[in-house]
């Protein structure tokens, strides 16, 4: 089972991603990879995890047409509207699409990023060991750029039996005939059923993008800001601004926490995803997966790994507060998986 897909509409920042291109920071290249890594994985499980790469889309989603062949597709991340040939589907879910089928994903009620994964691999070359698009380095994915209308993507041979993907008995020839018997609609996996025999546990349940403080550990330059300002930082609310992309998310500092701070320009040091940098004009910016490898602005803290996905799904205008935690706590959260 292989397929050729045609992108008919792409919102901004739709790109091919895989888990990330790690190990090249010393060459000036950050890892990229999905902004919401957990949702990316869950969409992969829904699709049967046949390929390491998937499509990340932003709030406006994308439309695609299966031009040839067939492929299982799974989706998750945020809450989007999804339909196949005009028929509404559930979110998250998975479906087998065949030639002529149209998938439409459009803005929904929550989140910034969603993921479309496939039963097979997206046919783009590995660049430095990864298919992830780095828009900053202009490598990976499709020619190192965002996807746009008219792009064609191949999805390679499925590694798993497609009937199993649909929860059908592979011996039931009648069912198979129905699948091959035309284009009268998608075959939606019955909700709550197992996918490829893997029961979806809590891990795969959709995570709500809701409140709760964003936890962080104090950073490299926390001392630069002084006790009073640090106290204000953890007791004031910030808002997500509309200036966000895969490189960083600017925050609105409505409580003017950093208005009076004297921001020094520092010698550049390596930065990491989740770093909370304070720009020269006092604007806080949280670094995303396509971050610069180094930065010279002071960093008051770094969002813990367990909260990164949730943070990047916060929509513009969402209010958030930051809560400091210790390193032991941050790492224990990861190990326990209860994040």
């Amino acid at each position, binding site marked *: 089972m292989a397929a050729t897909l045609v992108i008919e509409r792409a919102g901004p920042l739709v790109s091919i991603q895989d888990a990330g291109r790690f190990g090249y920071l010393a060459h*000036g290249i950050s890892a990229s990879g999905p902004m919401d890594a957990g949702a990316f994985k869950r969409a992969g499980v829904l699709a049967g995890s046949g390929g390491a790469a998937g499509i990340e889309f932003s709030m406006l989603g994308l439309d695609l047409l299966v031009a040839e062949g067939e492929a299982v597709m799974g989706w998750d991340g945020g809450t989007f509207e999804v339909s196949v040939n005009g028929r509404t589907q559930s979110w998250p879910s998975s479906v087998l699409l065949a030639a002529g089928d149209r998938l439409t994903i459009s803005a929904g009620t929550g989140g910034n990023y969603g993921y479309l994964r496939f039963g097979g691999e997206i046919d783009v070359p590995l660049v430095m060991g990864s298919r992830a698009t780095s828009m900053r380095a202009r490598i990976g994915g499709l020619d190192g750029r965002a996807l746009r209308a008219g792009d064609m993507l191949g999805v390679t041979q499925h590694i798993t039996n497609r009937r199993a993907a649909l929860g059908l008995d592979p011996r039931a020839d009648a069912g198979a005939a129905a699948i091959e018997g035309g284009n009268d609609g998608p075959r939606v996996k019955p909700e709550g059923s197992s996918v490829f025999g893997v029961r979806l546990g809590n891990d795969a349940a959709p995570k709500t993008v809701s409140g709760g403080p964003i936890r962080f550990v104090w950073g490299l330059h926390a001392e630069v800001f002084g006790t009073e300002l640090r106290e204000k930082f953890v007791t004031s609310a910030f808002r997500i601004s509309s200036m966000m992309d895969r490189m960083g998310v600017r925050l609105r500092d409505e409580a003017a926490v950093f208005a009076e701070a004297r921001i020094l320009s520092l010698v*550049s040091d390596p930065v990491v995803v989740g770093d909370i940098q304070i720009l020269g004009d006092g604007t806080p910016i949280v670094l995303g997966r396509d971050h610069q490898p180094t930065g010279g602005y002071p960093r008051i803290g770094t969002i813990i790994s367990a909260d990164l996905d949730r943070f990047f799904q916060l929509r513009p205008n969402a209010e958030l507060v930051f809560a400091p935690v210790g390193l032991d706590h941050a790492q224990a959260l990861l190990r326990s998986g209860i994040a």
Partner: protein
Amino acid sequence: MQILPERPMVQALGDSAILVRFGSRLDENANRRAIGFAATLESEEIAGIIEVVPSLVSVLLRYDPLISRHQDIEGEIRLRLHDALEERAGAAHGIGVRFGGEAGPDLEEVAGLLKISAEKFMAQHNAVPLRVLATGFAPGFVYCGFHPDALVLPRRDKVRALVPAGSVLFAAGQTAIAATDIPTGWHVIGHTDFSNFDPAAEPPTRLRAGDSVSFEVA
């Protein structure tokens, strides 16, 4: 009075990385110690470290928090900081540069600010090899230094939105080479055909921190 070098600072950078910093400002000593410590980590590996990234005055170490605890990694780091730091014997590169004109629109202005002729600037700029201080900012972007005090200028007031790959940049007592198209506030003094970023090559960059670079008029 002898000024002792700053004690290295070992600081967590989130829950999956640690930064070891050898100075809060960029100077020869801090940079050499950072490069030396990265070399030490190559010969005396720390179990659990998945990436070592030397920078201008610091070294980033990434680890997997599901496998290693930060206390253990920090302990291993401190053990290695007591050792005499290695000096990495870098490779030597010759880099041809077309100075001035369209290739280097700021050359005349730079020479003027330094109150010397463009010819004299090029001669002084190329007089001695520089060290690659670090890769950073963008793929394959290298900082080379240091020039003598007589060749120190601040950055431009205005940032250029885009300069092409191969641009040779000058500011803050350093010469930098852009390996991709980038925005920059540095003075653009020339252009080189030397490419320091090839995603199809392994490794994808040719210049490493600690290497020596001789600039020549192309």
